[in-house]
């Protein structure tokens, strides 16, 4: 199994450009998450999904949109990129089985720079 994969690994955007980050998992997990990681800030939750067709806002959702059209995929969109969105983005997933709040599995990250 590949686990959680993210595409692309690196990207440089100009202010105002748009892009979509793709997260895919092959573990049949119900829950998926998008985080951003900035120096000294830990991980902050952007959006998450508890199942196909559902999404919810996290801690820092402004400037981002998400979609979960297929259970295995979770897309993060930036409609008009800003320098403040320069960050490393991580996707994670977890199963709903065996009770709540079990471990999350993380992808390798996407390093995004907005000029």
């Amino acid at each position: 199994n590949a686990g959680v994969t993210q595409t692309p690994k690196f990207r440089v955007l100009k202010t105002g450009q748009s892009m979509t980050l793709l997260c895919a998992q092959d573990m049949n997990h119900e829950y998926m998450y998008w985080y951003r990681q900035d120096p000294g800030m830990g991980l902050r939750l952007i959006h998450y999904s508890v199942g196909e067709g559902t999404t919810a806002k996290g801690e820092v959702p402004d400037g981002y949109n998400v979609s979960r059209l297929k259970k295995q995929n979770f897309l993060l969109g930036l409609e008009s990129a800003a320098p403040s969105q320069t960050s490393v983005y991580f996707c994670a997933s977890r199963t709903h089985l065996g009770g709540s709040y079990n471990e999350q599995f993380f992808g390798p990250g996407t390093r995004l720079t907005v000029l």
Partner: protein
Amino acid sequence: SQQGEEDPQALSIQEGENATMNCSYKTSINNLQWYRQNSGRGLVHLILIRSNEREKHSGRLRVTLDTSKKSSSLLITASRAADTASYFCATAGAGGNNRLAFGKGNQVVVIP
């Protein structure tokens, strides 16, 4: 939202020594988890301790949880160079919101 807060922020130790890091949080939790992140990589789950547990072991890892003090500690015994990484605690709230709140992380450097 609740936040784990690790202390200390950075730790440098010799190979073979033990490394201890702490985490505090503010509200009621269902469980607390520790993750490791090697440089340039994603986070990897290490251990989960539930709110009704006080101590848990996994290999060279020992985690304690004191819910009265809202704190946890992670001990890595007999450290190795490969333990060099950042370590994050994350809390799962008791309110059932399906989310984890991550701390800012501890950077641990193990000198061979």
